[in-house]
């Protein structure tokens, strides 16, 4: 086989938000470069953040998918290969192996995403615990809760709280279990987290905080969840939303440098020449930011680089909106600097400002109607990665 040449395509592995956003941004800059996108699933484009707030609006998986792989191929003028699992990458010869075939690349972008973290659980129904990390899993969940009444959620972080609110709005009973003392404990200061807890409780959440699920067993038509504190609860379906772990195995096997994610520099370049990483699988300059806004900013920078104008990623201050209609929450996480939260409570809710030792605003959290101050506060923040 001939070594790869620059006339070979740019190959993107992954058809999630990162992969497709990069393709879209690249096409705005270069209409002609050959582009191949490899997808593990059927390759439809969908809004992932919508998965945790689509129930209340009765959206089916098919309605969330806004374009099929074929439509995306036309729109992006790209070759899209579906059901393609990449088994190995040879970074020296610039080829990758998938399903017994080899594909040559001029540049390779790994947009592999992340896997949901699974809790080690006992019980004969531990394998029935569901997770939603893609459209197909969302479809399975919709089917599982059809005609059912109660869902137990493991994990009261951003995704857990969003699902809880969405399930309540769709008429389900919700148990929410988390080892922390408060929901959104990693994002919010105490007073703000407490307000979220109370608002979701008023909306119907039954809290089980400061404990974890130990076992899930089937008792007739129901599931029994045993908690570490000795209590137990009954639910029809158990959904875990514990967190994400970057997919690094393929990169590791190819000899790329990995840490918690695939290690890249500010150019999104991995330790191998011509290989880049983007999105939830990438640890960019030491940071993994599994949110939409960082992906948009990184995809734009990488598109420029791939189009011939090397551009480092710049992260502006990036507020994260927690989609809990029962209690609006916006948070802009402060970087790891010493400082303190200053919490102000008024009729509009809570405004918490994180200030460093010199009194400079480094991050904020807004709860309730105060969430409207998002734009005003974001303007006062410095970029995360300038």
């Amino acid at each position, binding site marked *: 086989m001939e070594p790869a040449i620059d006339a070979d395509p740019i190959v993107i592995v992954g058809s999630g938000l990162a992969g497709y956003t990069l393709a879209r941004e690249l096409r705005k800059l270069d209409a002609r470069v050959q582009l191949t996108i490899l997808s593990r699933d059927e390759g439809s484009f969908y*809004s992932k953040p919508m998965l945790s707030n689509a129930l209340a609006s009765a959206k089916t998986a098919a309605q969330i998918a806004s374009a099929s792989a074929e439509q995306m191929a036309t729109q992006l003028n790209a070759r899209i290969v579906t059901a393609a699992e990449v088994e190995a990458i040879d970074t020296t010869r610039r080829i990758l192996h998938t399903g017994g075939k080899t594909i040559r690349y001029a540049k390779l972008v790994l947009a592999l995403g992340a896997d949901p973290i699974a809790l080690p659980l006992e019980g004969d129904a531990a394998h029935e615990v569901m997770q939603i990390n893609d459209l197909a899993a969302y479809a399975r969940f919709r089917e599982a809760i059809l005609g059912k009444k109660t869902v137990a959620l493991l994990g009261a972080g951003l995704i857990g709280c969003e699902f809880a609110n969405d399930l309540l709005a769709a008429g389900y009973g919700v148990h929410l279990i988390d080892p922390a003392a408060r929901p959104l404990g990693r994002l919010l200061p105490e007073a703000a987290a407490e307000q979220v807890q109370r608002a979701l409780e008023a909306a119907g959440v039954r809290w089980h905080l400061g404990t974890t699920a130990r076992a899930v067993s089937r008792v007739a038509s129901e599931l029994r969840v045993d908690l570490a504190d000795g209590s137990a609860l009954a639910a029809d379906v158990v959904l875990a939303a514990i967190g994400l772990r970057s997919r690094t195995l393929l990169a590791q096997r190819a000899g790329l440098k990995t840490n918690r994610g695939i290690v890249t520099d500010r150019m999104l370049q991995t330790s191998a020449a011509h290989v880049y990483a983007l999105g939830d699988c990438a640890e960019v300059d030491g940071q993994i930011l599994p949110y*939409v806004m960082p992906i*948009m900013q990184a995809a734009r920078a990488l598109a420029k680089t791939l189009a011939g104008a090397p551009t480092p990623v710049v992260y502006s201050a990036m507020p994260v909106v927690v989609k809990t209609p029962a209690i609006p929450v916006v948070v802009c996480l402060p970087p790891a600097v010493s400082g303190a939260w200053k919490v102000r409570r008024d009729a509009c809710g809570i405004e918490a400002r994180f200030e460093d030792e010199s009194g400079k605003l480094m991050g904020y959290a807004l709860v309730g109607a105060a969430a409207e101050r998002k734009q005003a506060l974001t303007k006062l923040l410095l970029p995360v990665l300038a």
Partner: protein
Amino acid sequence: MKTWQCVVCGFIYDEAKGIPEDGIPAATRWEDIPADWSCPDCGVAKADFEMVETGETVA
């Protein structure tokens, strides 16, 4: 007045309401929003928004 939805994050732009806190007054039509505007929730470009239904404002 129409509503538009961000294809990436689901944010809805309602022409009737505008986004006053982002400097877009109520009753601003979609075509009058600058081309370099981006979704306040996820940063997607104006060109990547899609229209939701063709009906009147939802509110």
